[in-house]
């Protein structure tokens, strides 16, 4: 069993173990989960260290690492040919960073769930199932397998939000589920279409292998998604349509304006650890999907629609930031800030330049750490007083100095203070977007300039919050009762927050920690996009 399988199935094993343990031991479940997550963390650290920077991946199986390819489903469907589905895992520079990110975010989320009291068995089992699904999405190279993991994420999330969430949890949970399902059902249709269009050059049969889908030579002459045939559906190029469908499916996850309305609800209603996972990892699946699937399989359509992607990115940046500015609920504010920050990802990706895509990748990783940190911080006060309305707090810096320090680190890091990862990420997303006009002519320069306004707005809402909640004389809505409850961060919290802050700082000072690993893949991806 290779490392990737271990990474994926370790949580499942732990989850089953938890299910089998008697309920009398329910206080120990979290240690089982912690063990699994820590082990996962070690494995991903090992993978990171032993990752070969020079291998590019993207479309060539031989340059993927830790490849595992086992025939899984072989079904004779008569005239439809043989259904060939492989258990096909592998990582390259685009996916490896996310494995590391996921394992760290999961660890933090687990630490944030330390005080969960309700139905522990179900909680940790679902948590670990989610962990498994996320790891699977990032390492699957067979589209069918990818889709299975992709959908598998929905259920645990539905229950995690729905059962352990806030007041309007039912609404938020189903809304989230529906949005995502709406995207993914149509994705399934495109997957089937791709299956029929692509043949495996080795066996001649149809295949779900994503890598084969990236090579135009593998498309059957008259197939619907054939590059040469250029078939049309309702007068729109089939490939463009498929790209749009896939893009929408992933963009819902990212999320983009105007497909974002699930996000504030889901984040706000979800319990803290789930918000951490949502913001820290799940949003990245959207971005990852766009890179791995939309750009790689439909580069022609991607280039065709780059202008719109860029526009959506800019719109998300500005719109998310403006919305954040209007919030009174701290968690909602951070949720909207996520929309804004993820807009940079889209802008960077749309530029199709090495700076832009690297910046987008960096932004995803950085946002993974920082948004986890932010949601963790919200969780800290929410856990203590069950309130997170910004106007209800004032002068927290006096009673919670260490907490305030972490808040400041997190806020300033997210608003792009140099030295933290978000700065490098946003700067290069924007530089890439600006550069695009000169290099490939995809995005007009004003988009980058407009996007940079998001940096200013980002500073505005975060600083305003800082001023309103943390500075000034202490004045709390809940009076002395709150004052007694609002104790400063404890050791577990400090550990989680520090590790996230350090990751962000490390990436900000030594971006090469991430860039070196992904460079070959990014270049390969751009090469792939420009071939056609």
């Amino acid at each position, binding site marked *: 069993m290779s490392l990737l399988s271990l990474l994926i199935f370790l949580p499942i094993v732990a989850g089953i173990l938890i299910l089998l343990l008697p309920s009398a031991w329910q206080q120990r479940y979290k240690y089982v989960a912690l063990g699994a997550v820590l082990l996962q963390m070690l494995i991903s650290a090992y993978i990171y260290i032993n990752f070969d920077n020079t291998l590019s991946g993207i479309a060539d199986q031989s340059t993927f690492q830790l490849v595992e390819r086992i025939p899984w489903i072989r079904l004779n469907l008569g005239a439809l040919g043989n259904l060939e589905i492989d258990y096909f895992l592998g990582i390259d520079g685009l996916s490896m960073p996310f494995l590391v990110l996921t394992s760290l975010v999961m660890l933090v989320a687990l630490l944030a769930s330390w005080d969960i009291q309700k139905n522990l068995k179900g909680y940790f089992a679902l948590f670990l199932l989610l962990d498994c699904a996320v790891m699977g999405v990032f390492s699957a190279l067979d589209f069918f397998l990818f889709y299975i993991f992709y959908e598998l994420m929905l259920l645990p999330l539905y229950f995690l939000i729905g059962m352990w969430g806030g007041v309007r949890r039912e609404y938020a949970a*189903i809304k989230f589920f529906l949005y995502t399902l709406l995207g993914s059902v149509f994705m399934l249709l495109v997957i089937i279409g791709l299956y029929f269009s692509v043949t495996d050059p080795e066996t001649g049969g149809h295949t779900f292998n994503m890598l084969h889908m990236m090579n135009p030579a593998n498309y059957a002459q008259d197939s619907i998604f054939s590059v040469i045939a250029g078939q049309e559906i309702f007068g729109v190029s089939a490939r463009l349509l498929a790209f749009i469908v896939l893009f929408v499916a992933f963009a819902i996850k990212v999320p983009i304006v105007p497909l974002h309305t699930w996000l504030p609800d889901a984040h706000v209603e979800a319990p803290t650890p789930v918000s951490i996972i949502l913001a820290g990892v799940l949003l990245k699946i959207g971005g990852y999907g766009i890179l791995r699937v939309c750009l790689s399989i439909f580069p022609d359509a991607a280039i065709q629609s780059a202008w719109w992607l860029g526009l959506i990115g800019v719109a998300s940046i500005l719109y998310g930031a403006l919305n954040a500015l209007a919030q009174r609920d701290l968690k909602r504010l951070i949720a909207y800030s996520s929309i804004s920050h993820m807009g940079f990802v889209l802008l960077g990706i749309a530029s199709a330049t090495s700076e832009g895509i690297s910046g987008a990748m960096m932004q995803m990783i950085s946002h993974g750490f920082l948004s986890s940190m932010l949601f963790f911080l919200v969780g800290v006060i929410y856990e203590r007083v069950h309130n997170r309305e910004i106007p209800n707090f004032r002068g927290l810096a006096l009673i919670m100095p260490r907490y305030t320090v972490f808040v400041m680190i997190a806020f300033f890091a997210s608003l792009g203070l140099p030295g933290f990862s978000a700065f490098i990420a946003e700067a290069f997303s924007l530089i890439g977007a600006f550069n695009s006009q000169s290099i490939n002519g995809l995005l007009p320069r004003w988009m980058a300039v407009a996007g940079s306004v998001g940096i200013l707005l980002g*500073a505005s809402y975060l600083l305003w919050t800082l001023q309103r909640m943390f500075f*000034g004389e202490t004045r709390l809505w809940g009076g002395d009762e709150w004052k007694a409850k609002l104790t400063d961060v404890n050791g577990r919290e400090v550990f989680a927050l520090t590790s996230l802050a350090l990751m962000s700082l490390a990436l900000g000072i030594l971006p090469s920690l991430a860039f070196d690993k992904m460079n070959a893949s990014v270049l390969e991806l751009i090469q792939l996009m420009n071939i056609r």
Partner: protein
Amino acid sequence: MDTFTKETISLLALIATLLPLFSFAGILLVPGSRDRGSFFSILNIATSLLISVVIFLNVWNKQPIHQQFDWFIIGDWRFKIGILINNLSALMLLLISFIATLVHVYSTKYMEGDPYIFRYWAYLGLFCFSMFGLVITDNLLLLYMFWELVGFSSYLLIGFWFTRETAVQANKKAFLMNRLGDLGFLTGIMIVFSQFQTLDVNLLFSEGGFFKRSLVQGDLWYFSSNHMPAVWLTIAGLAFFFGATAKSAQFPLHTWLPDAMEGPTSVSSLIHAATMVAAGVFLIARIYPIFNPTVLIVIASIGAFTAFMAATIALTQNDIKRILAYSTISQLGFMMLAMGVGAVAPAIFHLVTHAFFKCLLFLAAGAVIHELHHLKDKKGLDFDHQDIRNMGGLRKFMPITFITMLLASLALIGLPFTSGYLSKDAILIQSFEWAESQGSIARIIPYTALFASWMTAFYVARLIFKVFFGELRLNVLFGQAFSLHEAPVAMKSVLVVLAIFCLFPLFSLNPFHASHAWIIEGLPYFSTTPTVESYHILIPAVVSIAAIILILIGYKWYGKNEKAPDYTKAAVFRFSQEQWYLNRLYKVMFVDSVLGLARTAFSFDRTIVDGIVNFSGKIIIVLSAVSEWLDRKVVDGLVNGVASVARTIGNFVRHFQTGRLQHYLLFMILILLTFFVLKYFSQAI
């Protein structure tokens, strides 16, 4: 001391830069180090100063030092960072470390007794680190990073007393306005990177650098194989200048600086008078070749206008720090003006002299405030200890403070024998020469500056006379005789040292003529305007004589006894006192409108975007089950628009499920018939 190799010097510069960072990290992270924060910080900054001296001696008027390292690779592009020390940066390094050291020493007394003083030392460390980094780095991106870090540490220091509402408002404003400027900086970086694929300052802006090699032809701006519309060259210049505008508090982004006075006075003197605000001027000097003539005219106009505007405002302010703040803005305007007219070296020269005398002014003012504050605390009185209307006659109590501050004031006014005279007149002269070559309209610029210079004399006189002459007005206010003390030694000695630097000999042996000042000789001269000899005599004379007259008027009005005509009702006075109403204007224009936009966006989000999904087709639902739908079924997990439509359709088909057998059969047959007819007879019909 020429024995140092390039590598050693780079290493030294690095050490000098990192030492304050160690104070920052050490004080905050190492347990138990908080109590020894001052010692630790002073040690570090003093070492930095020492190193800076060494570096200065090794670099000044010698080969610049440029060392590079790989930072990271992105795409095909190898991102290098490094240290570039030429005359300019060596000078800045020395200046900053020197003033920072003095301010550190001063602060030991000034901040004594503050419970969170360890944070003060830490923040100062961070600031010094960022500032050093800013001046020695060779890369625009890194420059930008330090640029922001400087802003960040300024944010921390302005809001040092974070329980004060005004302080946190002020630091937010400062950071945001600087952010706004940063957008310009970033845009500039994007343009430069896009055109040249590098951000190396040396490659870009040195003699024979990329900028010199790029050329504008027609509407396009070429460099090797790249080209973009020529307008981007102008935009780049404007963008960088916009960045500098924010940091150096130029119109229209100057309003943060007076508010920033909420920070401790020592901070104001270091950051908001001497060093950080000068970063904008430094930036422009560093990247000077990027500016094309259009941009230069903009710079000159903005500089002159700022100088003038800030001076008019300073005329009527009563808060001692606010007067100094506006005076800083005004002086920065002079520097910008100098940049605009091509007087880079005089601008930097003025930067240096201004750093000393303005720092001194602030520190002396700090001493005054410190004493008054003490008095206030001791006697439990309630008055504004920064309001000059409460002061007066202090020269009796604080002679050293008075003398040093007087010297600094003279330098600020620009009277002969002071450093300010040398630098300011150099600027004025050159701007007149420039205007000569530019034509008639451009003359407005130097004349504006001239007026500003005169007003400077008046408001400085007003300040000095009100604070140090006459009687202590507190005595009148509270009806008892107070007595004050001279500042403690640590503060006093700093004032004296700085006062020495307000005099001419350290800068030029000729007290009347700046053209042979060593700083000017050591810096590049970009100006091409012809020298007009008459100006070199005429202007200093006019400036000085007028200044002296104004000082006398000031003395008459404010000095002995209050005989100032009452202008407080005059519109012009109000206009000046309300700082040209710019704050309010900005609030209405930007803050309110952005917040309004944000609220609109949010309600748009709630009602329209969500609504398009949520409420499509809801009208039909409303007919069937409004009340139930709203309270219970909304939560039934069936809320989205898809849901509404789905439910509508579902409800529609449900009507056919009447429970009556014969209806079922009838519907069935009707549907079949309809299908049949449509399929086979539709053409016939």
